[in-house]
């Protein structure tokens, strides 16, 4: 079971935050097929959020074929997003750690590293889009 959290003021609507958190958990293998998502009532009780928000998020995940609702029981994961790519995470992470060490050695502070990464990430995304 996973727990949701909300970042208010981020400009991302609460329902999208829930969707993103489920997708991230699926991608990282924290949630796999057959796992149950928290019930709407549980999420409402924990976060004091609008039940419609949770329902909307679950409906969107259902539309994407990631979860299925079993009436009266709950919402369950039907597909994982991790599958083949999860095995590659380890080596990629090691590359990233090495790269980060290099960046620090070159004198970049946290802010510059983040800015450089984001700018490159966006640039590559735009080129491939």
């Amino acid at each position, binding site marked *: 079971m996973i727990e949701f959290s*909300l970042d*208010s*003021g*981020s*400009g*991302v*609507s*609460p*329902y*999208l935050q829930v969707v993103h958190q489920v997708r991230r958990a699926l991608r990282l293998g924290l949630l796999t097929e057959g796992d149950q998502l928290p019930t*709407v*009532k549980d999420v*409402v*009780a924990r*976060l*004091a*959020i*609008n*039940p*419609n*928000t949770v329902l*909307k998020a679950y409906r969107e995940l259902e539309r994407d074929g990631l979860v299925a609702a079993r009436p009266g029981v709950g919402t369950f994961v039907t597909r994982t997003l991790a599958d083949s790519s999860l095995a590659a995470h380890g080596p990629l992470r090691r590359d990233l750690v090495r790269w980060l060490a290099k960046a620090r050695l070159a004198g970049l502070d946290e802010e510059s590293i983040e800015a450089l990464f984001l700018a490159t990430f966006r640039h590559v995304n735009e080129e491939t889009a």
Partner: protein
Amino acid sequence: MNTVVTAHGLGKQYRSRWALRDCTLEIPTGRVTGLVGPNGAGKTTLLRLIVGMLDPTVGTIEVCGGKPAADAAQLAKVGFVAQDTPTYAGLTVADHLRLGAHLNPRWDDATARSRTERLGLDPRQKAGRLSGGQRAQLALTLGLAKRPELLILDEPVASLDPLARREFLRVLMEAVAEHEISVLLSSHVVSDLERVCDHVVVLVDSQVRVAGDVDDLLATHHRISGPLREPSTLPADQHVVSASHTDRQSTYVVRTPAPILDPAWSVSALGLEDLVLSYMEGAAFAPTHPDLEVLR
């Protein structure tokens, strides 16, 4: 869209002052709608018009398919928790429930009792001896046990500490999950409403400035900043909500359905609080609104 409140050209005048003007509004059924705006914007006036405690000077209003406070059936459909969640200080918790049962045809006694029990309210305790948070919970319990179609709350959490605030909103949201109920609550603190409301109405200087689904509003509003630029040079589909300039930089909050492509701008998302605040700021120079009140 099914609506629980429909208003056309609604206005309320007190002597020479308009507390609410030209209010045309639809509030969807089955949703939690936040009514936000600064103090004195006309929120309480609008709520009282919906409840039927005030008659409009001009315009029409329909609530749950009827005229506000027209008859007993209409009164039973709308619950109202007034500002600062009032209770009778000299009456006990049990007295309040008995009073509720006598005064409301659709009273749900089982809900009322299980709620007070779950909240740990002693039935023999006088309401005047309860903490602020408990008093608010008692008022909410009465509002919910009435089993209205529309529950209206005027600044319900304004005087509560953060913990009691969260607890109050949690109980309210659980009730929304349990019963099919439309909720309309006002607040001048937007951060309280961000997670509980899926629809908002922003009221500034006695006029509705913007209304819509929270998700839509968040998706269509952006803060853009870049080199100094006149608002007239922005694309036609970008509606300027607020603007500020320094000698070399311009920052706008714009509403647009389309993505912002101009590479000169750095674009960022807006939280609901910032979004509402930009409408309040924007009111100060909105050309449609030559009003002396903005000088306050």
